[in-house]
């Protein structure tokens, strides 16, 4: 991480120089950082690690003297996997707490519920989940990876390795639908064939019929964009039918809910996934990050995935922007972020792309072995090409829409 050393020293000395009484008096002047992430209900498998790493980031920032000489006060809300609480807590954070920044949202539904509110109350908003892409909002920084970034690398690699016939299974909602479209596009671009696309409601646990269909279709590989706890059953049942030996799986979603720890080594071995972060990335920065996290979260520390790492990095991205802007003012921080600001985090370099407010980031491919990922490829500085097709905030900074809300076709992308 590239902490600005000069500023660090300045703020640290100024904090020390200040009498203790005065420092306490400044508590009301704390910088307010609000995190709204599900910690109960069905989405808590994603939300809990994200909250843990956010806490760690803020903790580190404060230990290093805070920002602009002020302490960063983290407030965490648990919307309990219901949309209505997202809206409520976003309103509370922006209009009530007068938060300087809000990091929030896991599903696109939750992001879309709070994005207008945060825009209206002029509260800076970070969304740190990998998602289907397409948000075009001057106030909203989307730091997660999008399908074009990961699928573009994952599809050719796995097709070269396994074969040209691809069977696609995806969760039946906007993310799954759009990801499936990108997969189909890249399969075609690489001279392959998508033999079938099947969508699964998020509460399906019995994949028997589909496994039989896959056996009948005889594809070379399965591409999975399944999501959530219920869908984890797919990999178990697939392995139980002996299929993981004959038709391997690649996935754009497996592992972000730490599914690789939920299924056994025998069931998961050989799967290939693509994300902008894996706990197993071999770099000093990451080794240090993982070590610090284990120390911070204690014995029950969850496995780290893109969502968790990106939540940590996004907190630093924002902190860095605040330092550069010399203020927590939304316009100034936004300007600093959009000036091509980047940090070196555990995943490598993460930089804001000003046309989309999305992140240019590294993408890694990894193969699962014994419940952990072995990195097999690294692609640096991948731009959010999908969102770039529909969004140009440099040309028109007043935009605040989710272009892919109604699918790719409605956004004018024909693939």
């Amino acid at each position: 991480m590239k902490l600005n050393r000069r500023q660090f020293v300045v703020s640290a000395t100024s904090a020390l120089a200040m009498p203790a009484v005065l420092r306490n008096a400044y508590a009301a002047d704390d910088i307010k950082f609000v995190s709204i992430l599900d910690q109960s209900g069905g989405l808590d498998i994603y939300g809990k690690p994200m909250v843990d790493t956010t806490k760690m980031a803020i903790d580190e920032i404060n230990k290093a003297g805070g920002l602009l000489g002020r302490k960063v006060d983290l407030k965490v809300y648990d919307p309990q996997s219901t949309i209505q609480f997202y809206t409520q807590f976003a309103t509370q954070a922006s209009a009530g707490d007068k938060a300087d920044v809000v990091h929030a949202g896991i599903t696109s539904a939750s992001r879309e519920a709070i994005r207008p509110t945060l825009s209206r109350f002029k509260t800076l908003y970070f969304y740190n989940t990998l998602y289907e892409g397409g948000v075009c909002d001057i106030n909203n920084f989307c730091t997660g990876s999008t399908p074009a970034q990961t699928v573009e690398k994952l599809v050719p690699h796995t097709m070269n390795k396994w074969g040209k016939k691809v069977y696609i299974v995806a969760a039946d909602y906007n993310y799954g639908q759009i990801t499936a479209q990108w997969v189909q596009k890249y399969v075609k671009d690489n001279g392959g064939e998508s033999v079938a696309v099947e969508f699964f409601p998020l509460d399906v646990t019995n994949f028997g019929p589909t496994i039989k269909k896959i056996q009948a279709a005889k594809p070379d590989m399965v591409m999975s964009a399944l999501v959530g706890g219920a869908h984890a059953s797919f990999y178990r049942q697939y392995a139980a039918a002996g299929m993981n030996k004959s038709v391997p799986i690649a996935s754009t979603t497996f592992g972000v809910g730490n599914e690789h720890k939920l299924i056994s080594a025998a069931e998961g071995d050989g799967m290939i996934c693509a994300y902008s972060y894996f706990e197993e990335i071999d770099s000093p920065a990451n080794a240090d990050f993982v070590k610090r996290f284990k120390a911070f979260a204690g014995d029950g520390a969850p496995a780290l995935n893109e969502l968790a790492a990106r939540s940590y990095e996004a907190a630093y991205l924002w902190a860095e922007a605040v330092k550069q802007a010399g203020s927590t003012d939304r316009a100034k921080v936004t300007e600093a972020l959009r000036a091509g600001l980047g940090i070196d985090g555990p995943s490598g370099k993460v930089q804001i792309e000003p046309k989309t407010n999305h992140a240019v980031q590294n993408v890694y491919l990894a193969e699962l072995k014994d419940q952990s990922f072995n990195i097999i490829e690294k692609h640096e500085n991948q731009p959010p090409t999908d969102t770039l097709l529909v969004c140009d905030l440099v040309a028109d900074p007043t935009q605040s829409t989710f272009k892919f809300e109604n699918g790719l076709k409605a956004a004018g992308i024909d693939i």
Partner: protein
Amino acid sequence: MDLLVSIIFQIVYVIANLALISLGLAIIFGMMRVINLAHGEFLMLGGYTVVVATNNGVNIWIAILILSPLVVGLIGIIVERLLIRFLYGRMVDTLLATWGLSLLFIGLITSIFGASTATTISPPLGVITIGEYTSSGYELFLIGITILLLIAVFLVLKMTTLGLVARGTMQNAEMASALGVSTSRIYMLTFGLGAAVSGLAGGLLAPITGVLPTIGTVYIAKAFITVISGGMAILAGTTSASILLGAVNGVVSFVTGPTLGEVALLLAAIILLRLMPRGITGSIFRKSL
């Protein structure tokens, strides 16, 4: 041909699955007129029993077949003594109390184990081959054990004193108490039995679906619909409703995909309840168990 056989196998499995997740609920509902909304969590607790036991080195078969029904059965008895027994005859109140129980269990398990739990168990028993198609041997085992479980419950209800008295109590509680039968004890044991069967089902499903604190919510609606469609008779109701709904779900899933499969199951249940408001066994097989 191979495809047909393997599709039929799959549909039988769907049916068995439905019967397995519903039976515990059916016992408690049929015998005691208690709709147990914590049923899904009993299944979940069965799954956690297996995971915790195997992580501590217990043999997976012992964990599934002995520990999960034992632990959850005991939990059921405790719950009955501390909560349900105060609420007999107050259907809506038991509904709410068991709903509270369901939230409590989810909260408790999340607090203890976290939102997700590492498991290393995988379905034992390898793979069976039907021509070009393969299925899980464990699925075959599940079909077998569901049939055995149905027979076992039948024997308990038909042959044992507990079963006889319990059936008497469920027909007419007052007459049973007039005959000097302790209805309180019978209710306790029945609830325990229902919980144990749910626990066993949860344990059996753990290797194939995994465990999460919130997994119960996936099961409860389906189990609920199966039991109500079946009607009051525990075994005949569960079996007939599972066959009907499972077949509808299985066939439609194959033809159109999982989305409409689930919808077809629910629609079949609605039409059934319109035609037979008291469930299948309210109209036919009335005298059965």
